[in-house]
């Protein structure tokens, strides 16, 4: 299914957020996720089912003021 990851289209096979993250190579523990604008906690990623066209944001610590 096609989902949007950090504003870019990606094809993923996994049905859950957890599976998609592994598939996309986001294996670092230093990432936080939001699906369609809402925060998804680390512990919930394996429960969250993805749907065609979902917008996923994967964020990491960056320099900031």
């Amino acid at each position, binding site marked *: 299914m096609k989902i949007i990851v950090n504003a870019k289209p990606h094809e993923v096979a996994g049905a859950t957020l957890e599976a998609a993250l592994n598939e996309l190579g986001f294996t670092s523990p230093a990432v*936080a996720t939001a699906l369609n604008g809402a925060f998804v906690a680390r512990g919930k990623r394996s429960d969250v089912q993805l749907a065609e066209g979902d917008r996923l944001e994967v964020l990491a610590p960056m320099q900031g003021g």
Partner: protein
Amino acid sequence: MQFYGIEINSRLLLGTAQYPSPAVLTEAVKSSGTEIITVSLRRETADGSGAGFWENLRETGCRILPNTAGCHSVQEAVTTAHMARELFDTPWIKLEVIGHSDTLQPDVFGLVEAARILSADGFQVFPYTTDDLVVGEKLLEAGCELLMPWGAPIGSGQGLRNPDALRAMRAHFPDVPLIVDAGIGRPSDAAQAMEMGMDAVLLNTAVAKAGDPAGMAHAMAMAVVAGREGYEADPMERRDMAVPSTPVLGMAEFA
């Protein structure tokens, strides 16, 4: 001085953006003596570039104050705050809800709303706000226990554009920690803020964009200490006219 019950010794908070290299950032953090550094959240690449930065931050031993920089809506800021809380394992959040993309001035209406939502959810909010007293009151009502009024627009280095408003805030909120956030360009700006009784200053560009960031970080640290000690020592009042400091009594007569 305490922020949300945490004892803080250094009155200088430092941002981590725009340094020429991670090594220069680390050196600047060290020479500033800061205990609190601000960080942000941005889109991760699959190579895990954020993880390395996170390691660097941890090595500084500083407390992390994540921000919601760049968020223009309440929902964006709230979602970012939740992501930051999980990632950095802290209830602290520097809340920015930007209202104008040229001036980067806070959308104070959205700010108050987001502060209320986040405070109710257990966050300890550091709101980046204007120097408006009424907005300050609304933020405290929303659950904030400190305020971060701007000195000048973010990254402008203009110093304190409205010192009278900051003085009014100090007088109006005598027991609320006030941190001047944004606009500090030079050590004298930081000293001025501290002399008027501000509790701390938060700055980034002034150090990161200096020719010698570590040198400037140290200069800022000294300015903050000097300004604070000056405030505590109760400065004299200004006078319109000269008043001799050397006693006039007992002067010799030579003519």
